[in-house]
């Protein structure tokens, strides 16, 4: 006897893992982010698109607790942090949270990697920060994480400066997922790579996202990347969200005038 009841949509039954409300950040007089609300559900990929200067990367920096916002609430449904506004954490808790639960991949590997430390060392750093003091464990974890991000293991002890751009992004990704974070933040992870490498890195990202079932926010100005990865999408302009919805819906049937321009714009 099978049940005829349909499962309710997941977005109705599960609580969001990440919830941010009224994010606001000014740089001088310039509003970089002006009152943005966003939710990310467990295992979901949220895309943020918009032109340069629309506040996409600022949002990621706020969510990575790199910068303090002017105002805003930010909560993660993670044991120990439930119900706390993460912007009010002291620097010890902030560091612990970032090391344990948030992984980030920057557009520029110089931000995310130590260029004079071996690739495996860059990945191991995460575990060292979390207090691991056994060499064998560090070594194996670094190897596993690099392997998962499809980095050629023969080069795991090369310094990032000697690696190609695609490989550097894979090292960043391995570092981000080394401790299996709850939240993965991707800041234009494939911008600056040529198209064929971009496709490979996107494949890896997609596979890892599915395997780890990690809540992901991807920021990009490339609609192709968003279409490939994101379940839902926010369209931003001048620090505000102009449109949001399911990716296919927004990109195929844009309602807002700016989104229509964005989708129509092709070189």
């Amino acid at each position: 006897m099978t049940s005829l009841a349909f499962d309710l949509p997941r977005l109705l039954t599960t609580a969001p893992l990440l919830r941010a409300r009224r994010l606001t950040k000014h740089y001088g007089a310039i509003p970089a982010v002006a009152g943005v609300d966003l939710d990310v559900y467990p295992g979901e990929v949220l895309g943020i698109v918009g032109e340069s200067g629309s506040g996409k990367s600022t949002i990621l920096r706020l969510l990575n607790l790199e910068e303090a916002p002017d105002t805003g609430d930010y909560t993660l449904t993670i044991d120990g942090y439930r119900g706390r506004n993460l912007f009010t954490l002291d620097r010890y808790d902030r560091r612990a949270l970032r090391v344990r639960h948030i992984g980030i991949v920057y557009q520029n590997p110089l931000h995310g990697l130590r260029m004079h430390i071996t690739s495996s060392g860059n990945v191991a750093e995460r575990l060292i920060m979390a207090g691991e003091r056994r060499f064998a464990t560090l070594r194996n974890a670094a190897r596993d994480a690099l392997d998962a991000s499809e980095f050629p293991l023969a080069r795991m002890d090369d310094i990032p400066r000697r690696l190609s751009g695609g490989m550097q992004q894979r090292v960043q990704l391995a570092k981000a997922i080394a401790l299996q974070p709850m939240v993965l933040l991707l800041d234009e992870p494939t911008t600056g790579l040529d198209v064929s490498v971009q496709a490979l890195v996107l494949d890896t990202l997609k596979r890892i996202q599915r395997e780890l079932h990690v809540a992901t926010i991807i920021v990009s100005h490339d609609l192709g990347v968003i279409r490939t990865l994101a379940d839902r999408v926010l369209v931003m302009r001048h620090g505000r969200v102009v449109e949001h919805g399911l990716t296919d819906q927004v990109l195929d049937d844009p309602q807002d005038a700016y989104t229509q321009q964005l989708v129509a714009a092709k070189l």
Partner: protein
Amino acid sequence: MTLAELARPAQDYSYAFLDEFAKREVRRRILKAIAIPGHQVPYASRELPIARGWGTGGLQVTLSIAGPHDIVKVIDQGADDSVNAVNLRRFIARMTGVATTSDAQLATIIQSRHRITEERLREGQVLVLQVPDPEPLRAVEPNISLAREMHADADYALMWLGLYEQVVRFGTFMTGASYPVVVHQRYLMSPSPIPRWDTPMLHQAAHLTLLSAGREKRLYAVPPYTDVRPIEFEDVFFQVENQQGRICEQSGAVNKFMNEIPQPDGSMCYQASDTGYVEKLVRRARGEPVAIGATYYDDDGTFYHPGYLKEQEPDHR
């Protein structure tokens, strides 16, 4: 009676060269340093008639704590007879009236650069180490303000990243001298550029160790009977320099820290680096009565705190 008779006799210098305020400053900082083991205390480092970087830190400490009844030994890279050691010793003796010795057992204050004596120091003795660079985090954090923040947070994770890199690249820890240690489970400390061989000697030592950097204006201390642990992995251990198979050609000493001396035929001969200790061994061999104390490492190379140094299988990569 004239005014001149009432006044104190004219002196060119204060006792121990430094004026009373300078000595009081150093003594107060020493007390603070002892109270917070391994913590770098800033102090007003004075000008001395030797150049900064040539032992002015150690010299200020020695001058501040020495009294006329002290006996001072000065070591430079293990030797009592190098130019620097001789100059410092002569200056200290002239300015304070202390007696001097090369015997580590007789000395009450031992000022040293780059070595600790092979013979165990005992309670009541003070070891003063000259420090060129007091900041152990310099290698991983060039920004000194951030390094201080890391000390405040006891956030030393980056040091283990450095260890990881060394093991990956070379199979073992490569830091030779001034191997970073954690004092009293709290502060990361540079033990001054003593070889790894000497680093364990600071652990649960009976004597007081004062470390002072004159140019960098920082001093710190390891009080007696304080834990001093070199940084290491739980599965890759700190190792001292291997002295096995080396015999001191002057004294026949084995398993002591040796100087390597290249010979014209390309071979090497070895001399124990601690000349005060060698001198005593030689005198005993001649039949003179000398009291030689127990050493930190016995003739089998076993350290006197059992279990402190751990054996390591060769390759763990």
